[in-house]
C-alpha cells in the first residue's frame, strides 16, 4: 500500500509542477502544441515528397501518411517519457531531494 501512496503523491506533485501555474486546459494545450507541430513537420515533408517526387503514388499516400502520423506522434510520447524522468532526477539532485 505504501507504494500506491507514494505513486499517488508523485502524481500529485508532478501535476502541480506542470499545471499548477496555470489553468489545466491551457497547460495541456501548451503541452500538445509541440507534438502536433513535429507531426505536421513530418507530414509536410511527406507531402512535399509526394508533390515533387516520383516514388509515391496517389494510392500509396494515405498509407504512408498514416505511417508517418503514427510514428511522429509515438515519437513525441517516447521522447517525453525519456525526458521527464531524466529532468525529474536532475532537478532532484539540484534541489537535494535525492541523497547525494
Amino acid at each position, binding site marked *: 500500500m505504501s507504494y500506491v501512496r507514494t505513486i499517488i503523491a508523485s502524481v500529485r506533485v508532478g501535476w502541480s509542477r506542470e499545471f499548477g501555474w496555470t489553468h489545466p486546459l491551457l497547460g495541456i494545450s501548451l503541452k500538445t502544441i509541440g507534438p502536433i507541430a513535429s507531426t505536421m513537420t513530418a507530414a509536410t515533408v511527406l507531402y512535399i*515528397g509526394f508533390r515533387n517526387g516520383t516514388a509515391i503514388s496517389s494510392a500509396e499516400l494515405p498509407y504512408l501518411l498514416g505511417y508517418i502520423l503514427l510514428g511522429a506522434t509515438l515519437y513525441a510520447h517516447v521522447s517525453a517519457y525519456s525526458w521527464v524522468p531524466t529532468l525529474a532526477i536532475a532537478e532532484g539532485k539540484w534541489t537535494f531531494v535525492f541523497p547525494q
Partner: protein
Amino acid sequence: MNLRASLWWKVVYARAWVRTKSIYGEPVWVAVNVGFPFFTSMALSLLYRNAGIPSAAGFAVLGGVMVSFWGNVLWSMASQFNWDKQQGLFELYITSPAPISAILVGMSLGGILGTAPSATMVAVLGWIFFHPPANPYWPLLVLVFSLTLASLYAMGMALSSLYLVYGREADSMNEALHEPVSFLSGVYFPTNIAFPSVLQAVGLLIPLGLGMDALRRTLFGSPDFGFVYSEILGLAAMGIILLYASSKALKILEEKGRRAGTIAVRMR
C-alpha cells in the same frame, strides 16, 4: 583601453568560457546535443530520398544544423536567467559590477562555440550519407549564417529578459515554442512550396524563418548576393531591433524586480 571596456570584455570571456566548458564537461549532454537533431534530420532526409527527391535531403540536413542552434537559443539563452534566478546566481550578477549586456553576449558566444561541433557533426554525417547538392559562394554563406545566428541569439537575449518575470512556466513556454517555431520557420522544408502566402509571411517574421530561407537560397540556389540581399537586410534589422529590445526589457524588468523585491529569488 579604458577600464569599463576592459571589464566588459573580461566578463564576455568569462561567461563564454564557463558556458563552453560546461557543455563539454558532461558527456551525456554532448550525446544529447548531437543525437536529437541528428536523428530527426536523418529521418527526414531518408523520407525525402525515398519520396524520389534525394536532392532535397539537403534541406533536412541544413535543418538539423540550425535546430541545434535554435535549441541552444531556447534552452541555454532564454531560460538561463530564470534558472540562475532560481539558483541564486542572478543576485550575484546584479550586485557585481559585471555588465548584464556582457553576460548576455558571453552566453551567446559560449552557446555558439558549444553548439558548433554538434552542428558540424550533423552537417558532416548528412553530407556523407546523402551527398546533398550544394553550390555555395562561401563568403556569402558565412555572412548569411553569421547574421542568422546573430539575430537568433538576439532573440534569445530578448526572451531571457522576458523570462525573468516567469517561474516554472518558462520551461512550458519553451516547450510550446520549440517545435511550432521550427515548423512555421520551415526548418526542414522550404515554406514557399509548402505553405500558403499568409503562413509564409508569418514565418519570415521569425529570425529563424528568414535565416532558413536565406541559407537555402545561398546553399542550394544561386550563389549571388542579389538573390538574398533583402534577407540579409531583414536579418540585420531584426538583430539590431531585438538587441535594443532586449536591453530595454532587461532594464525595465530589473527596475521592476528591484522595486517589488522579486529580482532575486532562491529555491528554498
